[in-house]
């Protein structure tokens, strides 16, 4: 019984993540549209896109990795999600969180990207290849401030368990965003890099790379990638909420917090052009890294 409940809990998590993911994306499309002086698509547009893509024939064959790449991505997003406790309390949505899961998360989050990279590399499309290399360069860029920020949190809370970090932020004043604003800034900028919104979308830059790594993926593969994207977006947002905004005790609270967080990259994405790869890396290594280091110093000073 208990097992059944846990398993159904996993599926519920994935379901919620997927739904929230595509609704958020739909919302961001509408918001973007409104800023752009137009009406925009219906909020469920991404769901239609995904269903359509799944229903397409996919007759492209570039070898095994090409098939596995998107599957990797989905697996990675789902895994990431399942290792993140969605709610602070309660039995539901706790998933596989365990001691030291933060470190694990750091790895698994990159895992999806690597899978994609391998898949894209196999397609032989130079656009994909260049996109992948740009993407990996960018990972190198944003991982440093992100790791620094996480380190600051881990040092501050003296734990690598996400659960415990969440538990420590029991009141608004204890939220890490206020406790360690530098870490938040560093992490959120890294987060921008992770979400691939402008100004950090150079791996996908249509202006020169068509659509970058997924250039050769269509139909089901693209559907998989978009599904994974929706789930992954939610996973990342939840992770950040857990890390900095004290997690959420119910789904509504979670929604509000994730949305607030989600608006940051969306809004910045609307009003900025993209950095070139080297500009992005330099940027990441400058300001966010500085904030990351500051956050650690801050923690050290606080202690």
């Amino acid at each position: 019984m208990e097992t059944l409940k846990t398993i159904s809990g996993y599926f519920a998590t994935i379901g919620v993540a997927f739904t929230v993911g595509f609704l958020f994306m739909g919302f961001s499309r509408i918001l973007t549209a409104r800023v752009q002086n137009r009406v925009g698509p219906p909020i469920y547009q991404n769901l239609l896109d995904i269903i359509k893509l799944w229903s397409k024939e996919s007759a492209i064959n570039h070898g095994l990795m090409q098939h596995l790449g998107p599957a990797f991505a989905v697996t990675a997003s789902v895994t990431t999600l399942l290792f993140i406790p969605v709610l602070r309390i309660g039995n539901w949505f706790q998933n596989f969180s365990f001691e030291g899961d933060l470190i694990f998360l750091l790895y698994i989050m990159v895992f999806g990207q690597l899978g994609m990279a391998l898949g894209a590399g196999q397609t032989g499309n130079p656009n994909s290849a260049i996109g992948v290399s740009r993407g990996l360069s960018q990972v190198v860029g944003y991982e440093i401030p992100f790791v620094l920020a996480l380190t600051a949190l881990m040092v501050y809370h003296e734990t690598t368990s996400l659960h415990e970090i969440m538990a420590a932020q029991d009141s608004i004043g204890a939220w890490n965003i206020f406790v360690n604003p530098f870490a938040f800034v560093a992490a959120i900028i890294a987060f921008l890099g992770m979400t691939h919104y402008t100004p950090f979308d150079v791996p996908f830059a249509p202006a020169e790379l068509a659509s970058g790594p997924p250039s050769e993926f269509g139909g089901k593969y693209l559907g998989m990638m978009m599904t994974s994207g929706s789930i992954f977006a939610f996973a990342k947002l939840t992770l950040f909420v857990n890390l900095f905004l004290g997690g959420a005790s119910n789904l509504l609270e979670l929604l509000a917090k994730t949305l607030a967080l989600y608006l940051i990259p969306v809004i910045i994405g609307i009003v900025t052009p993209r950095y070139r790869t080297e500009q992005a890396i330099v940027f990441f290594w400058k300001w966010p890294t500085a904030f990351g280091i500051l956050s650690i110093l801050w923690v050290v000073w606080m202690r």
Partner: protein
Amino acid sequence: MREKETTLYLGPQHPGITGNMMVKLKVTGDTIVRAETHVGYLHRGFEKLMEVRNWMQVFPIVCRICVPEPDPNEENLARAIETLEGREVPERAQYIRVMVLELARLASYLLWFGGQSGSAGLYTMPQWSVGDRDYILDLFEELTGGRVYHMYIWAGGVRRDLPEGFADRVLRVMDYLEKRLKHYDNLMLDNSIFQKRAQGVGVIDREKALDWGIVGPPLRGCGFKHDVRIDDPYLVYDKLKFEVPTETGCDVWARALVRRREFEQSISIIRQVMEKMPGGDFYNKVPNPLHWKVPAGDVYVKTESARGEFGYYVVSDGSDKPRRVHVRGPAYVHGITLLEHLLQGANLADVSFIMNSLGTCPPEMER
């Protein structure tokens, strides 16, 4: 992977390319080693088609030569014929033509605003400026009956007079655009990331700029104050007050600023035109188009389009069909010789950006 030289075909099916053309790039990593422009995807054989059509039938064709800004084509052909025939153009028609050309310039610049920032990933800007361009197209639609292809300027004047109350609507659109220009500044030109992308990119060798046949904003972005409207004034440009802005950066940023400032100048020209618009005739009728013959001779006429000197070399052998109409689009030089040159050593991310700043327009390169 980094050191390997990859061949990248940018186009013809590619969102980053301006129109339907191809740039074949050899890249190592993100750096371009060599670039080759391939055109001809839009070749329709205009110049041949003009030789088998009579002088009147040529007019609907020429405006297709440059899709974003058809009017300089019409103006050029009309003026070439007028010169060969010695046909007078009524003053009102000349003012109307200036207005049309400047509106076309504005429309073209609005498209450029979109293209330039869109190619840098600022997707809000094209949504704004292309949407706002529609108001100019509305004016064109009202004036000429066509949104994009106007077929309005023709030998002897213009095709129809201004509609009732048209001047007011033009001025209203001008006010609107001026207001919007501030928004564009905020979003695009003040944007530090945009500046970072644009500055020092696509630098034209200033010493060579004149020799290479560069014209229009790229030339003015190198600090040379050359503009057909002042160098070789046509229509009533010598009766209007306007500035020809120049910048000295020689880079994409300088070109952007030049265009941005010209945008204001064009608005001011249109306001002056509406103020000074004389009455009278708008059309000095040409003979029956079925038998219209233009006296023999050859003439080179040029118009300052949004991208620079737009020239027509027209030869008539006295028959009812042109002997030769040769189009010199500014992109002919910008899009091939100059682009290939500028792309050498440039970053892959800047290709589309540089192309937009040069205003490469494939239909006028290959016609």
